[in-house]
């Protein structure tokens, strides 16, 4: 079972980036921000980051761990892992279709 991210509006895309960022282990805000920027090439503002984190936490897709100093790491929940896997599978199908139509080499 997974949750659709589309209902998150303008936070849907940053949320997916955050879920992907957390899929290889817990991270705190600054680490997520740097990782997302590295992955997508798009800077993630602090307001957008925490708007998305609050939404993901409320929906049970991520959970906060005990704070380390003032920084609090977040980790993916089981539901979050299922959701990100479903989203990526959907995107993979989308990419394949797109590339196929463009006549590209699809492996």
């Amino acid at each position, binding site marked *: 079972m997974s949750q659709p991210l589309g209902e998150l509006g303008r936070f849907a895309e940053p949320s997916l980036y955050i879920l992907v960022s957390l899929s290889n282990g817990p991270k705190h805000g600054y680490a997520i921000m740097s990782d997302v920027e590295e992955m997508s090439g798009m800077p993630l503002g*602090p*307001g957008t980051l*925490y*708007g998305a984190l*609050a939404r993901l936490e409320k929906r049970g897709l991520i959970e906060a761990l005990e704070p380390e100093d003032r920084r609090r790491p977040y980790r993916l929940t089981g539901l979050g892992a299922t959701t990100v896997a479903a989203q990526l599978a959907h995107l993979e199908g989308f990419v394949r279709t797109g590339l196929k139509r463009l006549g590209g080499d699809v492996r």
Partner: protein
Amino acid sequence: MRALVRLYPRRWRDRYESEILALLDERPMSIADGIDLVRGALDAHLHPQVPGRARTAQPLTHRIPGLVALTAGLLWTWNLAYLALRADLAGDWGSLAGIAFVLMLLSLPGDYMAAGHGRRVAIGLGVIAACFVGIAAIPALPIKVVLAAIGYPLIFGGMLGLAAVRAGIGSRGRWRLIGLAIALPVMIGIPVAIGVTATSPSIRLLYALIIPYGLAWLLIGLRMAIRGAPTIIDPPAGIVEPEVQPA
């Protein structure tokens, strides 16, 4: 830029403020980050994601102290603003401001006074205030000016502080309010008062300096009316009234 975090709702800040400030300490903020924070704060107000306490319906009596304080603030502000503009009415200024003062006093008794400790503190403060006013009112007493200068700000500040507590304003907010509404006007007012006479145009400034006190009561009254403040006839918070057993 860090001040922009204060635009977020209190409940959001309780949960995320320290984290986001730590994040802002770790990297330099750009203008785009500032705009993003403002957008985030607006979103947090419009679409709260942090769950709050469930609000319970307030009895009608809980609105009374707030409405009384609001009326007091209105009367005080209106009266002093009018006098600041029309200094020729200097002799009559006590009428409405006096009623406002009584209303301010009436908004203060609450359920906290039903508990032993609260009642003792309230009675003690009342006795101290009465002593100050009483001594200051004796005409021939030479130290009455000194007593009035100390006593009145203490009484007015104490009343404002207690009302702010009842309105649920935090410690920092209370001190700021007392500072802006009483301490600052007193500091400005003393030098003005030293060289002032009843016919001097500076008397208008003195009246104007007392206006912030009414504005503070307006703010407190509004907040108290919205949040609700139990009156002395309501059961104290945390004390559950025993259920009446059917005969």
